[in-house]
């Protein structure tokens, strides 16, 4: 598996896209810091961008890479290598280099602006941790779509729909149901509904960490009560982990049973 990982990372390092992605984050970091001139404000702006953009790039990049490396996988499948190693290696290669671009691209500007001397170091670390989780989650989801769908155009369409649903439509439905059922107790429902969408979960986690949950009103109070505690944070991180583990498991399960 590590050999496959090595070659997929090597392959990605040579492709222009990883650098474009890295440059984008570098620019984003510098521009935000330049405009806000304040680390903690920049962190909040960055959060809004990360929870939407990282999933989008993860899905698009993941599905493109999977379809593009078809020749590579076909070549490997006839070699004495376990199938799960091939797909796990490819997946970790993509998700790993996306996360690396994110960490380096955002880390550098913040470091230069004196991150270590400021009080937001933990908030910023959580932001990067969540960005990394989202990269891993959405790359895994896009690989799942790609392995079940040999038609590239359809596969591409499904990933874009998935992102749109998770990032935009889900929130709409969530809010709508809160309004429709406002007469009922909704705290448990809203916590569960948040858990079911990694983007929402990430957003709430960061909001709570930044202590601006009051903006969320009543629901914010519910979340504060639940996630604000140590165990709430751990549960939320575990759920994000599950969001990675389950799609990866399904990917490997599917890979073992697919005809190539």
């Amino acid at each position, binding site marked *: 598996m590590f*050999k*496959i990982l090595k*070659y997929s990372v090597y*392959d990605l390092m*040579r*492709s222009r896209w990883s650098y474009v992605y890295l440059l984008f984050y570098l620019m984003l970091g510098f521009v935000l810091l330049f405009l806000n001139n304040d680390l903690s404000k920049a962190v909040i702006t960055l959060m809004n961008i990360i929870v939407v953009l990282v999933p989008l790039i993860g899905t698009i990049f993941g599905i493109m890479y999977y379809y593009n*490396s*078809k*020749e*590579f996988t*076909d*070549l*490997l*499948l*006839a*070699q*004495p*290598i*376990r*199938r799960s190693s091939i797909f796990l290696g490819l997946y970790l290669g993509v998700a790993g280099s996306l996360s690396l671009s994110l960490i380096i691209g955002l880390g550098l500007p913040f470091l230069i602006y004196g991150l270590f001397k400021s009080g937001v170091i933990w908030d910023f670390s959580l932001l990067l941790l969540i960005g990394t989780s989202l990269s891993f989650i959405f790359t895994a989801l896009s690989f799942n779509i790609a392995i079940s769908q040999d038609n590239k155009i359809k596969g591409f369409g499904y990933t874009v729909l998935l992102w749109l649903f998770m990032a935009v439509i889900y929130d709409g439905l969530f809010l709508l149901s809160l309004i429709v059922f406002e007469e009922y107790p909704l705290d448990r429902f809203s916590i569960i509904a948040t858990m079911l969408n990694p983007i929402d979960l990430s957003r709430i986690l960061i909001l709570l960490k930044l202590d601006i949950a009051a903006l969320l009103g009543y629901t914010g109070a519910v979340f504060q009560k639940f996630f604000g505690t140590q165990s709430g944070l751990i549960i939320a991180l575990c759920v994000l982990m599950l969001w990675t583990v389950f799609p990866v498991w399904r990917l490997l399960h599917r890979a*073992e*049973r697919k*005809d*190539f």
Partner: protein
Amino acid sequence: MILIENLHKKFGKNKVLQGVELNFEAGGIYAILGPNGSGKSTLIKCILGMVLPDQGSLSVSGHSIRGKWVYREQINYLPQIADFPGNLKVKELLSMIKDLRGQPSEESELVKLFELQSYLDKKLSTLSGGTKQKVNLVLTFMFDSSLLILDEPTTGLDPSSLISLKRLIRTEKEMGKTILLSSHIMQFVEEIADEIVYLLEGKIYFKGSINSLKELTGENDVEHAIAAIATTKVYV
């Protein structure tokens, strides 16, 4: 070497293999023949474990291959379409496969034989079809394995490379290896194969030597003999 029992495979409603029974003894050149879509590549991919059969059993060197992967260490496979990652150089591809297999390899002789020296630093996406096929052949023959599976090895080759290929296949046979190949070029098959298997609509219509095929059909020409078994059902 390879034992196939009651092998079934369908893709959707299309039944590609229907109860294939075959036994390939070790040491010898076997040609799998059949029209396009008769199931040759599917059969080959089943042996490699790339396609998973719906029913039936398949064993290589006496061990069932279901869910296994280590047995592929003793197989060299030449895929039908030489599709390689385009952004790699020929040299990088060779060293990558060597690294992945971790077995001793003999590629320099082969590179010379197919005159690929000047292409080693070129990217695979820039190579012509025939040159890609030569790279494909180098990748297949550079490891010392007891079983060689060649899916249409002659595609796109020029006459001199074809002669080299035939010589290579014969040398491998003399070393006691088992070679399984599929081809549409009857002249090539007649020259090289010890035994042929004729597959049509996923069933075996004939298995035996070329001479016995000629006797059976009463034709002197292999092409005509093949055409004859396709019309008259002769099961083995």
